[in-house]
C-alpha cells in the first residue's frame, strides 16, 4: 500500500513534476475561484468594446469586440479546459482499459476482433473523428468530451492489453484460477488493478491532448456555444487580429500554460515510475 505514497514522494523530488504540479494548482485555483471573482455570465457584455489591456482597472486585460471582460473569460475558460481535459481522459482511460483488459484476457477471436477495431480507430485522424461526431450529435459539453475520447481510447486499450498479457501469466492469477474465481472476476479484481499504473502515466498525456483538441474544436466553432472557452475566445479575437491581436494571443497563453503543466507532470510521473521499477 506504500507504492502510491512512494511514487508521490519521488514525483515531488523531480523538478519537472514540481513545476507541473505548481502550474496545474494555479490553474485549478483560477478555475475554482472564477465564479467568486467574476460572478455572472462571462459571455455578458461588461463594458466598452475593444478596451486595450492595462488601461482600465476594471478590465485589467481589456475587453473584446462586444465589450466582454477578457480576464473573466480567461478564468472561466480555465474551468472548461480543465473539465473537458479531465473528463475526456477519464472516459478514454476507462473505456480503453476495459476493452484492452477484455481483449488481453479473452484472447483468440475476441482479441483479434477488438484489436482490428482499435486499428481502425487509429487509422482515422482523431480530430476528424471528433469533428464528424460533434457535427452529428450537436455541439454541447458532453458531446465534445465523448468526441475527444473517441480518438483517445485506443492508446490506453493497447497499453492495458499488453499489461494484461504479461500479468495473466503470473502466479497470483493462476492462484485465483485455482481457488475457482470466475474469469470476469479475475479480470476485474486481480488483473485490472495491476495493469493500471502505466495506464495512468499515459493519462497525463491524454489530458494534454484533450485540452488541445477541445480548443481546436471551439476555435472552429464546434464547441459548446453557451460556455466560454479559450478556443472560442481565440476565434472571436481572430476577427480583429490586425487591430487587437492581444484578444487572440492572451487565451492562447492560457492553453500553453495548461498543456505545459500537464506534460511537465507527466514527465515527473514517468520519472517517478521509472525509478520505482529500477529499485526492485
Amino acid at each position: 500500500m506504500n507504492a502510491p505514497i512512494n511514487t508521490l514522494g519521488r514525483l515531488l523530488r523531480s523538478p519537472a513534476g514540481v513545476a507541473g504540479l505548481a502550474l496545474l494548482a494555479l490553474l485549478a485555483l483560477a478555475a475554482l475561484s472564477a465564479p467568486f471573482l467574476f460572478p455572472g455570465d462571462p459571455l455578458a457584455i461588461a463594458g466598452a468594446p475593444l478596451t486595450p489591456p492595462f488601461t482600465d482597472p476594471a478590465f485589467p486585460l481589456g475587453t473584446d469586440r462586444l465589450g466582454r471582460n477578457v480576464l473573466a473569460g480567461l478564468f472561466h475558460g480555465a474551468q472548461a479546459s480543465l473539465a473537458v481535459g479531465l473528463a475526456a481522459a477519464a472516459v478514454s482511460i476507462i473505456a480503453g482499459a476495459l476493452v484492452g483488459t477484455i481483449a488481453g484476457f479473452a484472447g483468440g477471436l475476441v482479441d483479434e476482433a477488438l484489436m482490428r477495431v482499435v486499428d481502425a480507430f487509429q487509422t482515422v485522424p482523431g480530430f476528424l473523428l471528433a469533428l464528424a461526431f460533434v457535427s452529428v450529435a450537436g455541439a454541447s459539453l458532453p458531446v465534445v468530451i465523448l468526441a475527444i475520447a473517441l480518438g483517445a481510447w485506443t492508446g490506453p486499450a493497447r497499453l492495458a492489453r499488453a499489461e494484461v498479457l504479461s500479468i495473466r501469466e503470473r502466479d497470483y492469477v493462476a492462484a485465483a484460477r485455482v481457488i475457482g474465481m470466475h474469469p470476469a472476476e479475475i479480470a476485474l479484481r486481480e488483473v485490472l488493478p495491476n495493469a493500471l499504473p502505466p495506464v495512468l502515466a499515459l493519462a497525463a498525456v491524454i489530458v494534454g491532448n484533450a485540452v488541445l483538441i477541445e480548443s481546436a474544436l471551439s476555435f472552429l466553432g464546434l464547441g459548446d456555444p453557451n460556455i466560454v472557452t479559450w478556443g472560442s475566445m481565440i476565434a472571436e479575437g481572430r476577427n480583429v487580429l490586425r487591430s487587437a491581436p492581444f484578444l487572440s494571443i492572451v487565451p492562447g497563453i492560457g492553453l500553453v500554460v495548461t498543456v505545459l503543466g500537464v506534460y511537465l507532470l507527466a514527465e515527473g510521473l514517468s520519472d517517478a515510475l521509472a525509478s520505482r521499477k529500477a529499485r526492485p
Partner: protein
Amino acid sequence: MNRALRLLRRRLVSSIPVLLIVIVGSFFLLELAPGDAADAYLLSIGGGDPALVQALRQSYGLEGSTLSRLWLYLTSLVRLDLGWSVIFNRPISGLILERLPNTLWLMGSAVALSFTVGSALGIVAGSKPGSWRDRMLSTGSLALYAVPSFWLGLVLIVIFSVQLRWFPTAGIETIASGRQGLARARDIAWHLALPVAALGLIYLALFLRMMRTGMAEAWRQDYALAARARGLGHRRIAVFHIARNALLPLVTMLGLQAASMLGGSVVIESVFAIPGFGRLAQEAVAGRDAPLLTGIILVSAVLVILVNLAVDMAYALLDPRVGANEVTA
C-alpha cells in the same frame, strides 16, 4: 527485397478488415445525423414541395433501408466512386483529388522541416545528456510541444504578416497571377512558409525529444562503451554510433503521427485559408454534407495506411533484423 515484398503483401491483406471497419463505422456514424443530403440541399435552396423531396431522395440514392444503402455504397466504392457531394454538386472523388495536393505539400514540407531540424537538434541535445545545451533544448521543445498549432499560426501571422509584412496571411498562391514554372513554385513556397512552420514546429519538438531520449539511452549500451574503448572521439561516437541507432524509432514515429498530422492540417488550413483536404472536411461539416465527410474519413484512412506501409517498408530495408515472419512493433 523479397522479404520486403512479402511484408508488403501481408500488410496489404491485414489492412482490408481495418478499412472495412472504417467504412462501415463512418457510414453508420453519419447515418445517425439528423436529416440527410436531401434536407441539406433543400435548406440551401430555401425549401421545396414533397414531390421535389421525393425526387431528390431518389436521385441521391436515399431510398430503401440502411443496409441496402450501405451495400450500394460498398459496391460503388469498388468502382472508386465515392458518391456525390451535396454542397459542391459534383463527384466527391474529383473534389478530393483536386484538394489533396495542397494538403500533401503542406504536410510533406512540415514533415521534412520537423524531421531534419528536429533530429539534428536532438543529436545536439543527446550527444551530451545533462549539459546546458541539452537542458535548454529539452525544456524549449517541451514548451513548444504544448503550443496549439492554430494559435501558433495566428501568432506567426501577427508577427510576420501584419507587423513585418514578410509573408502573406492566407491562400496557397497569388490568385490570377499567371505565374508559371519556377516563379509559381516560389510563390507557393512563399505562401506555405507560415503554415508549414505552424504545423511543423510542434512535430519538430516531438522528434527532438525522441531523438534526445533515444540517444541518452543508447549511451548506456555496451556498444557505446566498446566504441569508447576503441579510442573513438566523442563526436564521432555520438553521430555514427549513437545517433544512427536512435534514428530508427523516429521513422516509426513518423508513421504513428501521420494521422495526427492530417488532423492538424484541418485547423491549419482553416487559419491560413488554404483550399486543401482539411478545409474540405470543415466545409463538409459546416454544410452537413454526410457523403463528403464519409469520403474524407475513408480517404484519410487510406492515406494513413499507405504512409504506414511506406514506413514499414523503409524499416524492413533499413533494419536487417526485421524479418518477414516477425511482427514489427
